């Protein structure tokens, strides 16, 4: 079963959450990353995500395998949109189920941190004043 997915259409959060449900899991933590209407003081109108899909998929699966080995969790999923997104769209979703909440919080944060740091996906913001720019991991522009 795939634990990480690149989505060209809206992420099926309900479907992913159902995959995580388990009688053994008492806790679930999820993270949603939405397209914000501003970044670094500039008004954002929309954005595009590009991905190097085969490596993004492989690296995403590696992160999800690492998290299952490192934390006492039941299961985890992550999905990341690619393509054109509008303000308020869901860009990335992470869900983790566990017997206890501490591991669920830690594992969820580990996944989103590692995905942002390692998975070859790039965000191109389009600004209200008409420009656009590729961003660094810390959301500052690439010069």
């Amino acid at each position, binding site marked *: 079963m795939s634990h990480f997915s690149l989505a060209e259409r809206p992420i099926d959060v309900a479907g992913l959450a159902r995959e995580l449900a388990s009688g053994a899991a008492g806790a679930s933590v999820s993270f949603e990353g939405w397209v914000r209407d501003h970044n670094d003081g500039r008004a954002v109108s929309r954005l595009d995500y590009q991905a190097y899909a085969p*490596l993004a998929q492989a690296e995403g699966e590696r992160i999800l395998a690492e998290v299952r080995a490192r934390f006492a969790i039941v299961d985890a999923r992550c999905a990341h949109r690619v393509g054109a997104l509008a303000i308020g769209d869901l860009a990335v979703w992470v869900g983790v189920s566990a017997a206890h909440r501490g591991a669920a919080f830690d594992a969820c944060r580990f996944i989103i941190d590692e995905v942002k740091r390692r998975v070859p996906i790039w965000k191109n913001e389009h600004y209200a004043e008409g420009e656009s720019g590729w961003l660094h991991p810390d959301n500052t522009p690439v010069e």
Partner: protein
Amino acid sequence: MNFRVLYFASLRDQAGCDAERVDSAAAEASVLYAELRARHGFSLAQDRLRVAINGDFALWDHPLSDGDEIVFLPPVSGG
């Protein structure tokens, strides 16, 4: 040798294409990037990038083979 090179993000904008076939004698990815940076005027220095060869991360001094797919990866910004 002939390589297939894929471009993403600012490299794609500066190369003006998603991918190209490149004939080069470059034995390592670092040499190939220097050649392509000179040709396309890429603003990103090599130390800002990672490189992937045939679908997985690689070292810059990994020996290249004819037919390799090579991707220079700008700093990522998913999430």
